[in-house]
């Protein structure tokens, strides 16, 4: 029997900007139903990695596949299975909330777009805002709309870059629940965040990156085991600081 195809697969990704290396041979994968946290200090290459994964930036080298479809060879098919939520909400100024969902449903060919759109708007408490323009929404509402639009086509891979920025505590809780529900429904979720508590709470696996390279990855238990000088109940914050600032930490080439 063939092993299941990972929903997200990044192999030896390299991205350079004018000679400076932003991502340096990074590999990671996320299986269906799994939530993977991507953490790292500022400038570690998280956003660049996610943008490459979303097809926004072309990688300098390496391979990216979504649900088994190579992003370079079959870009349209790969993107059909992907949803990306950038760190800053990017909305069309002249479209209302409902318009955004209508356009996205059509672009992704969502059969039950209207019903699903209504359901998502209600889930994200935007039902009474469906005729509002982005200029009339708070940052948190825009972020919720981005996430609703991302979930509309039931993606196999959901990629979120700092998804909780600008959300109120209630919305953060609902967002966590949504991500867990998505994973339970079989979606692979890759989430980048500086909120290490959140990552620890919802992510099955964590990938720590620094200077474009993978420093550590695995479940919290696996990472703790890889760092024997840490206490057995060390949380992700301790692990993160140890991995990115601690002495003698080797940064393996290509992870």
């Amino acid at each position, binding site marked *: 029997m063939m092993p299941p195809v990972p929903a997200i697969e990044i192999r030896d990704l390299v991205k350079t*900007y*004018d000679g400076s290396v932003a991502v340096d041979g990074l590999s990671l994968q996320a299986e269906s139903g799994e939530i993977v946290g991507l953490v790292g200090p500022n400038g570690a290459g998280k956003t*660049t990695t996610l*943008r490459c994964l*979303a*097809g*926004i*930036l*072309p990688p300098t080298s390496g391979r990216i596949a979504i649900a088994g479809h190579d992003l370079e060879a079959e*870009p*349209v*098919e*790969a*993107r*059909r299975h*992907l*949803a*990306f939520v*950038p760190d*800053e909400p*990017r*909305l*069309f*100024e*002249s*479209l*209302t909330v409902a*318009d955004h969902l*209508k*356009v996205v*449903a*059509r*672009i*992704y*060919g*969502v*059969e039950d*777009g*209207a019903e699903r759109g209504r359901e998502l708007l209600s889930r994200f408490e935007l039902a009474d805002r469906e*005729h509002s*323009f*982005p*200029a*009339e929404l708070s940052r948190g509402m825009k972020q919720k709309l981005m996430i609703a639009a991302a979930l509309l086509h039931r993606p196999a891979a959901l990629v979120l870059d700092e998804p909780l920025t600008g959300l109120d505590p209630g919305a953060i809780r609902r967002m966590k629940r949504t991500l867990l529900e998505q994973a339970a429904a079989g979606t692979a979720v890759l989430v980048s965040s500086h909120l290490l508590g959140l990552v620890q709470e919802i992510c099955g696996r964590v990938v720590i990156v620094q200077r474009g390279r993978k420093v550590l990855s695995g479940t919290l238990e696996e990472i703790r085991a890889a760092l024997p000088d840490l206490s057995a109940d060390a949380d992700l914050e301790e692990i993160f600081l140890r991995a990115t600032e601690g002495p003698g930490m080797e940064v393996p080439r290509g992870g």
Partner: protein
Amino acid sequence: MNGALFELAWRTFRGRIVRRLRLLRQPRYFIASLFGAAYSLFFIVRQLRSWQSFRHLGSLPPQVKELAPWGVGLALALFATLVWAFASAKPALRLSEAEIHFLLPAPLPRRKILAYAVWKQQVGVVAGALVVAVLRGAGPPGQRLSRLFATWALFTLFDLHLKGVNLWKARLAEIPAPAARRRAGAMVTVAAAFWALLLWSLWRTARAAAGGSTVDLEALRGMAVAAIAGLPGKLLSPFAWIGRPLLGDLAGGWLVLYLLLLLYAHYEWVLRSRGRFEEAALERAHRQLERGRRRGGGGGRPAALRSRHREPFALPPRGRPELAIFWKNLNQSSRLPLAWRAAVLAALPAVLLGATLLLGTPRAMVGALSGIGLTVLVLLPAFCGLFLRNDLRTDLRELETLRPWPIAGWRLVAAELLAPATMALALLASGYGLVLAAGLAATISRKAAGAAALRAFPGSRVAGPFALLTCGYGSLLAAGLAVALLSIAIQNLATLMLPAWLGTSPQGGRRGAAATGQRLLVFLAHLLGLAGGLVVPALLIGAILLAQWRWGIALTVLEGPLLALLVILPVLAEVALLVRLGGARWDRLDPSREVLDREE
């Protein structure tokens, strides 16, 4: 301005230059910049030369030269009064949001921040003075320098005076009402006294000089000379002295000293002001950003004013994704249903036809309507790409949303062309509507109004109105639409080739000499591209005309559809090629430096 602020200004300026230079590392920007620089140089040299040769023609006659500074003085006095009367009480200094958030909480005296805002404005003021100096032409180096100095001084004076008045008015709003009323009253009294005295003395001079004789040009000149010699001249002197250096008269350097003293007094007035500017500056920075966003988004109007419950057409939930992009882009221009827009377009010729018939089909009206319509049909297509921008040019800002969409690059580019093409069709159809109304009116009222109206209809000497409207102008409409599509496709391809240049910035339209040069270059490249695209149709039509001439076959309007086809088919093939090229470029576009991380 203290050292830290000078450092900030210098580093900002240097950073801007470095960012632009870095862009030149890419060969396409480098080559395009070379062309732009060459053209700008050519333009400046040509301008200088042409003015050099026409210097004698362009120089003012002595009688006018004698009076001109007083005219400038009067205009300046009027300007100053209007500024005091209507300038806002919000001193919205030109500070960016970053400058406001960094500088206002910093331990810097208010005077230094105001000085920074004033000096920062000097970049634009000096650039503006240089442009005016170049446009005003050549002359001896001394004269050129004095004109440049005078222009700079005048612009700086405008800037400082406006800032000063804004700050003064802002202060009035902060002090107790009785004190504010006293100050405002004093200013009103001074201004009223000045104008009352000036107008009264002018009236007296005019009455004395007129002496009952007829008022001709010489008499008017005499009145002006008498006014200058009398009280009006004395009152206007401080203003006229500002105008004299503009005409190359520095009065042995005394006027330079006068202008410098005036500038220094204004500078100190602004720096010593006590009105609050912080809130207004922040408001202005926000407003600027919002305006830019709206312009970039193609909206232009506040969202609240839009008819949010309308849509161009009902977007079916299933089908080709291109339609969704078309629908989205149509929304950028207006949310009015397409059917309504079509009805307005159809009603236009009907209304005009009715009006023309009601007025008895005047020849001038038929001529004007058909002339305007013809101009629209002939001239507009080539420029549609320059002003219809609800396509990739605005969408590229939302690259992070668009790029992950599961749609092939060429299909996305093709979809992006549809909305501006539809708007181009509407514009051309309105032009055709005017011609149609004129043609039908002339035909219907032929017997009543005679053939006069028909003679005003362009082309009526070679064919009947029916043949002209269908084969002639109908063909022009179809060919024009193809050319408009080519014009739009060229602009979209250019956007993908040089995204940093084509207004994808969140701040909207960019300013400055470089941006102006880039726009000029893009305009030229657009015309060149269009000319290149029309070579094949021109050759095909030329071959037909040559063959007809060779075999003695007269050209008739009935050939219109054939000639239009010779334009449409190659142009559509070129558009398809541009779409494919654009799609390939979209698929490979690395927007990291040019779009995603761009500051301006």
